[in-house]
Structures are given as C-alpha cells and as structure tokens.
C-alpha cells in the first residue's frame, strides 16, 4: 500500500468520488496510511477463488411478515 499512501491529488479525488467518502483529501490520505495493514489483510480475500460458494448472507422475503406475526 506504500504507493497508495502517497497518492497524488487526482487519485485521491477519484478515490473519494468512487467510494463516496465525505472525508477531506488530507484526512483520506492519513487514513490510508493508518489503515494500510488492515486494507492489506482484506486484500487477501482477492487471492482466493470461492465462486461456487453461496455467501453467508441469506435474503428472507418472509421476514417482514414473520415479524408482523402474519
């Protein structure tokens, strides 16, 4: 992440736009530096192929009805 830690202003601007973060460019730059180890850890997820696996997120269309007792 070292190169991203010193992103040029246009790159920071693009990152702000794409992620929708309201943080000021200088705060975003500081956050990228502070959070680099965590973001590197998350990036490990991109190295594994899990395409055949349903994620542990289940949409339950009847939940609203169950909560309403119907």
């Amino acid at each position, binding site marked *: 992440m070292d190169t991203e830690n010193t992103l040029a202003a246009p790159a920071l601007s693009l990152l702000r736009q794409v992620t929708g973060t309201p943080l000021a460019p200088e705060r975003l730059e500081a956050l990228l530096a502070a*959070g680099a180890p965590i973001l590197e850890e998350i990036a490990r997820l991109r190295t*594994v192929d899990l395409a055949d696996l349903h994620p542990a997120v289940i949409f339950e269309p009847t939940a609203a009805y*169950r909560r309403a007792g119907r």
Partner: protein
Amino acid sequence: MSDDELHWASMARLRALMADGRTSSEEVTRHLLARIGALDTRLGGFVHVAEDALAQARASDRRRRRHGARALEGIPVALKDNYLTRGQPTTAGTTAAGIAFPQDADSACAERLRAAGCVLIGKTRTHEFAWGTVSPPTANPWDLERIPGGSSGGSGAAVAAGLVPMGMGSDTGGSIRIPASFCGTVGLKPTFGRVSRHGIVPHSWSLDHPGPLTRTVEDAALTLDVLAGYDPRDPACQDRPVPDHAQDLGRGVRGLRIGVIDNHFMDRNTPAVQACIDARIADLARAGARVRRARMPILELGLAAIFAIELASSGAYHDRAVAEGRSAQFQPDVRDLVELGRLVTAVDYLKAEQVRARMAEEFRQLFEQVDVIVTPTEPLTAWKRGATHVRAGDRDESVLAASWRLTYPFNLTGLPAISVPCGFDDEGMPIGLQVAARPFDEVTMLRCAATVERMMGTPRRPALG
C-alpha cells in the same frame, strides 16, 4: 454474613442465602454499592451507578416476602454501557456531540433481567462503540497497570474485583471472552440468535452477540436460562426451546470428544499460555475425554473476513456520523476503523461472507467427529497500558490482531463459546481456556467448562484491599 462472603458469593450462592433468609437483596446491594464506592475510583469499571439501586433491592425483598422469588430475585447485576436501560444513561462509550441514546426504554436483556428479579446496579465501561480491546481507562484488578481487555472491560474488571457477581457484555469479535480471559472470569458468548440483541447499540449486525461475564460457570448457565428465548424484535433471534443450561454441569467429561485445532489456535501463543492449555487438555483426557487433533486451513483468511465484515458494517451504521463530521470526535483508533468502512468494496465484503460460509461448513464437519473444541481464549495474558504491539509466537502483532485472533472464528461462525479461567502465568496474570460447541449446544459447552473449573479448585482472588 462477612464482607468477603457477600462480595465473592456467586449468584447461585446469593440466591440460596436469600432464600434461607440469611441475607437480603438490600444487604447485598448496600454492601456492593459501598465496595464500588471504595474500589472503583482505581478500577474505573463503572460509568454509572443506579441512584435507585437500593430502592430496587427493597422492592425485590418485599416481592419475595409477598409473592415468592423469581429466578434471580434480588441479585445485583451490571450492564455494559451499550445496553439501553430504562432510567439509566447509555453512551456506548462515546462523548461525541450529537450522539444520544434513549433512557426511557430497556434492551431485551435488561427487560429479562428485571423480569427475573435482578437489581440493575449500574452500567459498565465499554471501549467506544464496543470497538477496541483496552476499555480505557478501566484497570485490570490483577495489576492496575494492565488493561482489562475489551470491549466489555468494565464488566470484566467489576466481576473480577467482586463489585458485582454478573456483568453483561457484548461480543462482536471476542469482546466478552477477551476481558474474561484477561481478568480471570467466565465469559459466555451464546449461539448467534439464542439471545435477543434488541436495544443494544449495534456494532456489526451479523457478528454481535450478548452474553454474561460471571465468576462461575454455573452463574453463566443461570444467566443464560434467563436471557435465552425468542424475541421478534431481533431479526436474527431464533424461536427454539430453551433448555436447563445447568443440567450437565456436574456430569464430567468421560466419553466427551474434544477437538483441538493445531493451526491458528495452538501455534502462536506465549509459552506460558501454551503450557497451561496443554496441561488442561491433558487433564481433560485423564478425566475420560477423548482428544482428537485437527487442522483447518480456512482460518488463515479469518482476519481478512472479519475485518471486511466488521468495517463495512460499522461504516454503514456510522455513515451519517462520518458524513456530518461527527466521527472526528471519536477516539482516534475507533475513528480510523469506522472511516475505513467506506474503503471496503462490495466484492470484498461478499468474498468475506463466502469465507464465512466455508468456515461454518468446515466447523460443521469437525463437529461430526467431536462434541466441543478447546482452545486458548487469548494467545497471551493482559499487557501493560499503552502497548500498541505485542509479541506472541514468532511475530509482533497489533494488539487488536492478537487479542481477537482466537475468538473471532466463533463470531464469524456464530458458534457458542465460553472462556473459563484455567491458570496463571509467571507474573500472576490469569489465563483463559475457550470451549466452543455446535450451534445451540450450550449445555455440552458448559459441561466441559464446568469440568475445567472444578479442576482448578478454589479460585484465587485479586488483592485489592
């Protein structure tokens, strides 16, 4: 009743003493309020003590005389400061302006504890929004220069110091079990969906678990009896029968199949922790348990998965606070974690949920061969205040990464897990042993934990004066 008897008595013991008329809720509550007043300026476990605690206790005594006792009649308990509690303030550990929580409603757990007759004596300190592991400025009762663990550090310190027999915690990556291990208490995280999260300030919706910190396994079982059950206000809460969680506490472990996962859980611990856990596993085998060793490579991706899920969830919950600039008032570590949430992509989030599905399946397969899994709760004992990195095994780690490494697998999988004291290191700091079980099989988990507790004999107490 001597002072020592009153403040070190378990909930089960207090219940028996009150039933026999040897003490009253008012006497116990008055004593604990005095002890909180005397010791908590040094410990910092409480952020609020209920003005009406004695009135609650007197009302409980009157009710006992007129109508008999409910399950936990008259027993003083505390709630972590992220549980809404009627008549008491809730801050979730934040002082940021513009963030307030209602004081006129109870969380589901507060409701159930009240309905069981408990005296809600006060609120215990949490790391801001239940992030983090140090619960500043709470001290560890075993060494005031050390952290108590977190984020339920206030409950851990208060229970370990004899200020209260039970304190509620919440556990998103280990926040009940970490302070339990560091403070030498029992800490129980039930199965996801066993206890309602209604009225707890959310941290990460699919990872948050409510549960108790106590001084005995029996008290954890008695508390779970009261807390467990369906609540339609929590979309994840499951409508299942609630067993008597204490039914097998005295059964021992003969014939029990114990799993030990050698990678991840047993390969990067301090020598003191490793020796202690190895000794307890050998004790369990001598007591008749059958030990099966296993490996689970998917655990290598657990940290990535929980970071992605927790940061994205916390980022979503606090999105308005970030947008309006209020997150700038959060503690620096919490602010970083919350604001990083926007940088987790949807693809990374869903890949984390795929890792989670794989991990749940691999644990399910292991549970075809074993009844419980035993691990250390923590790879090390409580560290000195101010440390940002620690060494356990062959590498330095951030305190966050080290402290939840052995606990978060059971948040990702929603499996029940408990920490029970199992020894001390050379510096006199407690070590915890973690027992996990199949979903909704808390009874077997508690059976194993109770056996470990009996092996340890009379518990040591911190010297606090």
